[in-house]
């Protein structure tokens, strides 16, 4: 934990400059957050993350089943100092932890983008866990409702026809030595277990991605623990800071035990 005392001091110094520093944030001490903090962080102190991370989320969502959010890391990932995980929490969703993104220093930037379902007006929180185990939180209030029980947008047959198909959006030029943003789409209906089959009138059993493991040249880069609050056809925006060309490999698995694997060669031409 104290492998990098300097980095830790620097982080703390940043935090101490802020009014709420050093304490669990008191301003929004609603019971729901207290519960989440106990369940997911064993009541460890969660500090104000202002200045370290930013959460971009719409104040009012246009589609409650598809709310794009970005957690922006305001300092670069280096082996000496990095964010090792970002927890994305949606207080009032039936499954409040949408995802945990575990991030290697080789991402170069811990910034991530994804799309979430929002079931009712709720605070959305990003909690960054730094390499020394400290927790830093920022939050935004999002107005949207019905995102978890919203009807699935396609019929089941169509949804499963594209199951597991992946699409990787890469920048036009792939730069060695700096963070490149990649956006990964994985086709999956992400049935929440709260939607009704239009024909049989039965609840559609939950069926969603559980883990997404991304490696760069065989080394872990990003690992996502996913849940039902991720939108249909999950989007994952993340970064890689490569030394040169390489192979990006994605292995995703869902709660039914299916595995989806795909890899891409990147950077060869630039």
């Amino acid at each position, binding site marked *: 934990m104290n492998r990098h005392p300097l980095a830790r001091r620097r982080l703390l110094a940043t935090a101490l400059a802020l009014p709420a520093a050093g304490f669990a944030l008191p301003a929004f001490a609603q019971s729901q957050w207290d519960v989440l903090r106990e369940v997911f962080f064993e009541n460890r102190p969660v500090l104000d993350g202002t200045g370290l991370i930013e959460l971009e989320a719409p104040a009012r969502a*246009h589609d409650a089943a598809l709310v794009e959010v970005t957690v922006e890391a305001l300092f670069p990932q280096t082996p000496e100092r990095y964010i090792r995980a970002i927890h994305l929490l949606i207080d009032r969703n039936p499954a409040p932890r949408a995802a945990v993104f575990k991030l290697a220093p080789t991402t170069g930037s811990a910034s991530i983008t994804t799309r979430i379902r929002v079931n009712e007006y709720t605070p959305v929180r990003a909690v960054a866990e730094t390499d020394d185990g400290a927790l830093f939180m920022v939050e935004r209030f999002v107005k949207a409702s019905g995102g978890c029980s919203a009807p699935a947008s396609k019929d089941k047959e169509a949804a499963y026809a594209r199951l597991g198909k992946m699409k990787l959006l890469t920048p036009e030029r792939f730069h060695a030595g700096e963070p490149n943003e990649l956006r990964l789409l994985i086709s999956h209906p992400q049935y929440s277990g709260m939607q009704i089959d*239009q024909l049989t009138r039965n609840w559609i059993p939950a069926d969603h991605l559980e883990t997404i493991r991304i490696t760069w040249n065989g080394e872990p880069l990003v690992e996502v623990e996913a849940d039902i609050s991720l939108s249909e056809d999950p989007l994952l925006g993340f970064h890689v800071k490569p030394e040169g060309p390489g192979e990006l490999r994605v292995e995703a698995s869902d709660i039914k035990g299916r595995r989806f694997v795909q890899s891409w060669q990147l950077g060869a031409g630039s």
Partner: protein
Amino acid sequence: MIGPAIDRRALLGGVAGLAVAAPLRRAEAAALPLVEIAPGLFVHVGVHEDFTPGNRGGIANLVAIVGSEAVAVVDAGGSPAQARDFLEAIAARTDRPIRHLILTHHHPDHVMGATVFRARGARVWGHARLQASLLDRFPTYRAAMERLLGAAIEGAEPVPIEEVVTIEVPRRLDLGGRVLELRAWPTAHTDCDLSVVDVATGTLIAGDLLFSERIPVVDGSLRGWLRVMDELARIPARLVVPGHGPASAAWPEALAPQRRYLEDLAAAVRRAIAGGRSLSALLADPPPAGDWLLSSDNHPRNITAAYKELEWE
């Protein structure tokens, strides 16, 4: 609105018998204003507003078609309260019974009054997918409408769709010397769009396959809607009643603004995707919506729907 005068005369000649066969009672003070756009074809024009207790969900155009034996109603209105007034307004124009209720799709402004007509003995017609879609969404819609409309929504229930129209096989409905052609479409505005043609007057009742003045809402498939519009344009009608907009407009000319909006939307979203612009970046600096009404919420929603659909192309 309907082209050369000679067409209009021919048109009126063709349905002159109907007007006689369906004797009209003088409307004293109809609770809901109706416009007779062709003989025996009445339209109530919805307001271009969001749902409010004041408008009782009455934002969509509603149609009543009077034959010599029966009346068909196309869309039931946004609440039982509005539907009861619509019923009263129809009764002031004809003594023929309302035997048929045709629902153009599952959206609440079109279906929430359906129970009122069914209670009066109307058979309910719809797209083969309507029943499932309606049941699927009804609880969500009902809860939202309770919040937005208050008491007007009391008594709203999902209705059974008794007469089903498939995409493959259009159906005809005879009101007594007056035939309606019902056609179900592949996913476009929604996944259960149905159109109606009143053959005698050459009038297409488009449901929400056509928006005019009020911004179109993409709740099915943008690409599908554009494809359906190509086919829709070939329907040999002279007049169209849009789901939202004026009581009637010239057909197929009235399609043009909606086509332009949807094509521009698809082009802008495709450009963004090709240029690596994220959905949130696009929403932060959206392409212009044009002069459509009620675009502030609906245009970003359409961008979101289009992005989600087109990013898999």
